[in-house]
């Protein structure tokens, strides 16, 4: 359970998972921010205004899944590194997960890296399909990896 060990349980994750019909349509954000903390950069990062906080800055962000285009601009803006983009429609059987990565070395496109779950346990080798690291991201790279579809909500970090 998140508040005891830092690991979001499947039960806790349900609150922020997009519905299956939305997942069928391609990339979408998952905002794994489950606590009322005073933070709101994701709201202004979203170019289509899909992220809302109803009760002000200390509210949890709520994502309008049907408005979200999965563009990923919120990912590097989140100070908690808590936003991921998942794309179930990458190739048949394979999905992608995009995540913030602030450790050196920054992997390169095509490189094989070790995927880690929410507890930091290695779950196998995966391929990096995209790395975005522009100056505007201020040293938070966004790395996209190719993962089996059933791992899309299990893999949350990489070891290069």
């Amino acid at each position, binding site marked *: 359970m998140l508040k005891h060990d830092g690991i979001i349980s499947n039960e806790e994750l349900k609150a922020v998972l997009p519905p299956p019909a939305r997942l069928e349509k391609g990339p979408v954000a998952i905002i794994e921010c489950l606590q009322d903390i*005073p933070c709101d950069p994701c709201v202004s990062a979203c170019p289509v205004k899909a992220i809302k906080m109803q009760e002000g*800055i200390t509210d949890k962000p709520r994502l309008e899944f049907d408005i979200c285009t999965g563009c990923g601009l919120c990912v590097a803006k989140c*100070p908690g590194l808590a936003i991921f983009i998942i794309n179930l429609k990458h190739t048949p059987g394979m999905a992608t997960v995009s995540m913030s990565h602030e450790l050196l070395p920054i992997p390169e496109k095509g490189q094989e890296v070790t995927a880690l779950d929410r507890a930091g346990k290695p779950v196998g080798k995966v391929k990096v399909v995209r790395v975005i690291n522009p100056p505007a991201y201020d040293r938070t790279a966004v790395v996209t990896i190719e993962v089996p579809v059933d791992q899309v909500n299990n893999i949350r970090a990489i070891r290069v």
Partner: protein
Amino acid sequence: MSRNTEVFVIGGGPAGLSAAYVAAKLGARTLLVDDSSRIGGQLIKQTHRFFGSSNRDAGIRGITIADKLQQDIKDVSDKLTVLENTAAVGFYHNKEAGILSHSAYERVSYQSAIVCTGATENSLAFENNDLPGIYGAGGVQTLMNVHGIRPGQKILMIGSGNIGLIVSYQLIQAGVEVVGLVEGSPAIGGYLVHASKIRRLGVPIYTSHTILKALGTDEVEGATICRVDEKFQPVPNTELDIKCDCICLAVGLTPLIDLFQQAHCRMVHVGELGGLVPLHDSSMRTTNPEVFVAGDASGIEEATTAILAGRIAGARAYESVHGKSPQAEEIVAEAREELRTLRSGSTGERIRWGRERVMKEVGEC
């Protein structure tokens, strides 16, 4: 030698820099002293992105906020004098204070003083806690992020507040293995997103645990931790030895208050704010009308609220020298509203209780 100033700001962290900037910008002759060689306070070690409102620095790294504040004060250099490597060492009567640099002791005559001395780190009592290799989290950050020195190869973190969580993450970024994070409470104290960040990089989080002793004779070679019950008492036969060459204590901060006591400010003990703090009103004025406070010295919080409280104190200190000013009032109103929103919600509860207690005591003075 002696100096003369209208507003005297002690401490060049986020609160002091913001207070000095506002006071000088409004037009007060201002002197800021800081005992370190580089102003910016703890911000110069903060390599992570800040939380908070995107209207004010959220999503920006602490080191960048320090740069911004340093740039701001350059814009008011005609009114503001900054002395680094200079400590305020005492308050005297007749609105005089003493400052000490490497080369001289001087007296400062001021009309209003703003004390932004910040906080000191708490330690923890356990067997062998004086072995080389046991650090406070602030010390670790200074070594690592200011001087580029790793404190060790394998480190055990004690404390799951935001500082413990964030410093663990920074240690991982610096290439140090964090072998575990120990927390006495059953729940993680800091923001859970920070906890998830280190957990998914493989750091075990031991809630309801405490450190019993550091292992080793000449230096840290490990630690014994154990489970604690709901009364924080060690549970027998749950001891676990963990190998490490460093132990980092992130077990809270205590406001640094000696100068307030010298200035005869009335103090109050508020646990939620970290201990003894000077009583102060919503203008950050203490019970000594010439002395203001801002930042962690007024109660442990974080940099964004320190900046806002510093702006309030700077505006009010200006007014106490030059009289009422609409611009000062506007700065105060804006900062108060931002503080209110930042402290709202469930994570701000403890701070709100603490702040309310201070306000209540002020009302009863």
